[in-house]
């Protein structure tokens, strides 16, 4: 990516300007736009974190909502005792620890069993926390946190950027190769001397920590939470779609996939057709774009071709204009001819 940027000053300038624009955006944007971007950054960070582990190793996890919920609950409990920023970090730590325990016991399950297990984990946490809430009389927890939307915006923007850069950096290191080797063939990876268990558990836990952090940061806006808000399975599905739509293999892939998903969600918000659209997304991805959007973008992004493309385009427009003028002239002449008769 770094070499790509050096070769490509246009792209580098565009990215730098884009980042500055995003940092300055809350100064001019309305509350609605800020909220939209907050949710966009949350999805980008979640999808990148998901892809960091599941995209490379092909352990498809549906536990996103579980770690997300752990983060929310850690914040809801932690903000009473700690400063907000410490509570956020504590939430990330909680996600990390839960994933460590889960990973130690489950990462030897492969394929469908892992998918089902992670899905079940969310349900299990949901039920247990609900039960604990009923027992202790704290089924709904009210939170009175005074944090401005702009701070949440900045926190999540930073999280998303750190997630993308971190995941890109790891992909260039030995660890990144090891992760991809596990995804290609775990047995072979183990035989080439990779400590697959350690790597899988560590990366699973890091990705869970990011998910928990995002959950906690989003929860800063909530005034109350309960188990069904925190452990909502739709987070797992939507993040999965964003990551797959973007495509793996590139650090920026999941981010690209998150944009259309968030816009679609916004457009269909509360609509009865959201579920159908979501389902069709799954089907379309698998049959039509199994590699995701990002390889397609890369194929059509060729700045060197831009001058020629511009030339061809303007020629086409000019020819179209000439054709239209001729057609008009001919019509005018015919009209004139008719009038003379």
């Amino acid at each position, binding site marked *: 990516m770094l070499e790509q940027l050096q070769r490509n000053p246009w792209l580098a300038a565009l990215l730098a300007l884009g980042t500055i624009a995003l940092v300055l955006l809350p100064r001019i944007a309305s509350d609605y736009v800020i909220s939209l971007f907050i949710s966009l950054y949350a999805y980008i960070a979640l999808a990148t974190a998901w892809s960091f582990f599941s995209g490379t190793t092909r352990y498809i996890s549906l536990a996103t909502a579980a770690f997300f919920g752990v983060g929310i609950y850690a914040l809801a409990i932690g903000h009473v005792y700690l400063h907000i920023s410490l509570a956020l970090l504590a939430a990330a730590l909680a996600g990390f620890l839960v994933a460590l325990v889960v990973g130690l016991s489950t990462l030897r399950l492969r394929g469908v069993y892992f998918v089902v297990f992670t899905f079940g984990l969310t349900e299990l946490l949901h039920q247990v926390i609900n039960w604990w809430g009923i027992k202790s009389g704290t089924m709904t927890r009210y939170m009175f946190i005074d944090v401005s939307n702009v701070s949440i915006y900045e926190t999540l923007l930073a999280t998303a950027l750190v997630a993308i850069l971190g995941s890109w950096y790891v992909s260039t290191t030995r660890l990144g190769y090891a992760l991809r080797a596990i995804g290609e063939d775990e047995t072979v990876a183990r035989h080439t001397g990779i400590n697959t268990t350690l790597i899988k558990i560590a990366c699973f836990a890091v990705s869970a920590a990011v998910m928990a952090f995002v959950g906690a940061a989003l929860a800063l806006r909530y005034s109350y939470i309960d188990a069904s808000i925190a452990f909502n399975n739709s987070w797992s599905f939507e993040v999965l779609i964003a990551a797959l739509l973007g495509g793996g293999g590139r650090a920026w892939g999941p981010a690209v996939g998150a944009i259309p998903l968030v816009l679609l969600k916004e457009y269909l918000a509360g609509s009865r*057709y959201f579920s159908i659209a979501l389902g069709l997304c799954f089907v379309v991805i698998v049959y039509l774009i199994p590699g995701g959007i990002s390889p397609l973008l890369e194929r059509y992004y060729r700045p060197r071709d831009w001058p020629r493309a511009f030339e061809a385009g303007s020629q086409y427009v000019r020819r179209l204009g000439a054709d239209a003028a001729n057609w008009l002239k001919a019509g005018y002449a015919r009209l004139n001819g008719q009038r003379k008769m």
Partner: protein
Amino acid sequence: MSEYFEVFLSGLLLGGMYGLIALGLNLQYGVARILNLSYGEFLIGGAFVAFFTITGITISIFGVAIVALPPLNPLLSLLLGPPIAFAMNWLIYQFLMVPLIRRAPDQDVLDADVVLVTFGLLFVFQGLALVQWSGDLRSYEFLAVPVKVAGATVPLNRLLAFVGACALAIALFLVLRHTRFGSALRAITIDPVAASLVGVDVRKYSALAFAVGGALAAASGMLVSTFNSFSATTGVEYTLKALIVVILAGVGRVTGTLAAGLLLGVVEQLGGKLIDHSLTIAINFGLFMLVLLLRPTGLFTRA
């Protein structure tokens, strides 16, 4: 003691229902090797057909009534629901699953694709049902009369579902053991490649097994709807329950499915009684995770 016997008995009845809803999924996953996560939607489909059979329905197109059915016995819906589910599942296998099977280099990749597509189908079916019938919980009364069984009182509709589960499991067992069709299915369960080498048309029989699994889902949906309320969105709960039972039993084990269902039902009821009733789902998942970790091939498989 008799208090615990009643809990045990209700556990057995509940477990019969679990076995019932898992039979079809085990056929789909065990024989056709397709983990159909939209399984529960077909179950709910069967429940809706039963519901409209007992309440009566007027089918109209553009506001013009075409057919008006009077309220009928919901058991009659077994003539309609399962065949429709059979056809739909056959089509799903032939047109959606076969391209994926052709394309996948190994079972891992296929599993990932199948999980995604069937999740997609789940959302599509659920969305269509929501648009058509809204998300309201529905229920109807059918055979809600108490009967005495070994000194305890149980509702007749639950007993019917239990008997239905046993009958279907036995019938399936006999078909698998004693017919040519059954031996073909068993051969595919053990090894699809070897089966095709001895002349079994794997694609044809897998499609049939998948379709029969869907039909069983609709039939069990009908039986379950006599005592459980349901809505357009409750299908996924049944899929999860069925999946737990299938993994407990071991993939491709028909008689094991019923046994695992019974075990799960009894453990759930006794656990609920001993610990807390609001923890039943947690107990379910706890048992499921324990089996996944300790014996991932299932309880009723030969080692």
